[in-house]
């Protein structure tokens, strides 16, 4: 593996947080859309 190629990076909890938050936003928007 050269220094120019991506090396395996650890999966940070922050990544899960931001992706879960994105899904929660979509669910919230769905609820808002259905409510009004």
């Amino acid at each position, binding site marked *: 593996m050269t*220094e120019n190629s*991506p090396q395996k*990076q650890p999966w940070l909890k922050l990544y899960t947080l931001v992706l879960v938050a*994105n899904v929660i936003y979509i669910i919230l*928007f769905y609820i808002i*859309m259905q409510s009004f």
Partner: protein
Amino acid sequence: MQTLDWIVLIGTLVTIVSYGTWKTRGSKNVQDYVRGGNESKWWTIGLSVMATQASAITFLSTPGQAFHDGMGFVQFYFGLPIAMVIICMVFIPLYHRLKVYTAYEFLENRFDLKTRSLTAILFLIQRGLSAGITIYAPAIILSAVLGWNLSYLNIIIGILVIIYTVSGGTKAVSITQKQQMAVIFIGMFIAFFLIISYLPPDITFTKALDIAGASGKMDVLNFEFNLDNRYTVWTGVIGGTFLALSYFGTDQSQVQRYLSGKSMKEMQMGLIFNGLLKVPMQFFILLVGVMVFVFYQFNASPINFNPASDDVILNSSYANEYNTLQEEQKRIFEEKQLVIQNFSENPNKEVSKAIQLANEADKNNRDKAKLLIQKAAEEQNRIVETNDKDYVFIHFILNNLPRGLIGLLLAVILCAAMSSTASELNALASTTALDLYKRNSREVQNEMHYVKATKWFTLGWGILAIIIACVAYLADNLIQLVNIIGSIFYGNVLGIFLLAFFFKFIKGNAVFIAALITQAIVILGWWKDWMPYLWLNLFGCILVILTAILIQVSITYNETTKR
């Protein structure tokens, strides 16, 4: 504009510019000037990245978009958090490990000098043009509604940005962006709460949302698989990821923001911060627009918000027809009042349908007015923007906010324009100085020489941006032209980066030839109108990857057979 507005506006802008210039004076080396001394914390990076993306048009146009078409635009940002994670995992570790100053420097490490120079030049063409438009777009709107001189406004915005960007480089851009974002958030929150307070006493926030919902403005999500519809959940997630990946991962105006981070962790956290806040922020700006819509259900509004349209139509042979439409608009407004009164007392499906019909009639009437304005403009050989979404929010601000707050909201718009322009000039100068000038000069100079050169390039790009902004009115729909140029180059550049990251067997020659061929084909495709220009992004990206693979395979095959 009252004296108090002028004091707030000038005071805010001058304070930010002076503080940024004073606080960051005296950069001693390139690392200090271009990477901000690598001192930025995650929240500075996050705010800086958000401030760079949010231009003045975001705050002028987005509420207007919600006013006319509802909240659906927020879907466009669903891919952004996904792109942030990919950039944190793939792009940042590589940029950080190689200690690059620009994104294109990485391409020399991975491929060769000519590929680095080519992508740097593609970036300079695209971003150089759009820096002028970042100044011009809000200036043309503000000059139209406030009667300010367009050229003076362009020059003032440009000079304010040049002062602190030349003086302090990346550090000045980051520091001022924090203050600019603070002004933006405070201004937008005050505007939001004021709009709600202006609604009739019996209309609560929930009732306001009910009225917006009955008019179809709260249709946030669209799950249809329809390529013609730009704003669906799927285009947001797939297309949005792709666009955000190319913008945040390969555009130096964004890359330079997070390269200033103290550590890799700070850079990653800064982007995650952006990924967390961007969707709610856009939702909030759109909600402001929806509340403006509800406000105008109880208050009369012009049939077209662009003040230039009145001048064009009233001096044309269509003036009588236009007056009839205005009368019709008044009638629809009065009818709506009765229906909404009914709805607030007794909300049910029947009344809700009546609101929807009244708003459809309102929209049809506005569309007819747009057609007349267009015809009137053609009759007089004039150009006028009939799509008035950029003028809705500013019209509301100028006609309804109290003294002092008008100045603050204008400061919001100008801060947004300055923050984006500063990042652009900073990135353009760094790329010119490091990727082209330093890399191609024969003599090695000391650090101060390159700092001075970057400052001169910042000044040069700033002057060019002002010139572009000042002549932009000559071109018919220049903003669209800049978007087209972006679509022509962006896909190719992203493709080159993806080849660098994920296709280890591809070498410099293959990718360089593939990039040239792709660029020529994409330009031909745009010229021959093969597809809507937004798709050129994806087309260019896939094409450069496939072409490079094909060329590399044939090069390898030839070498093997020769042996």
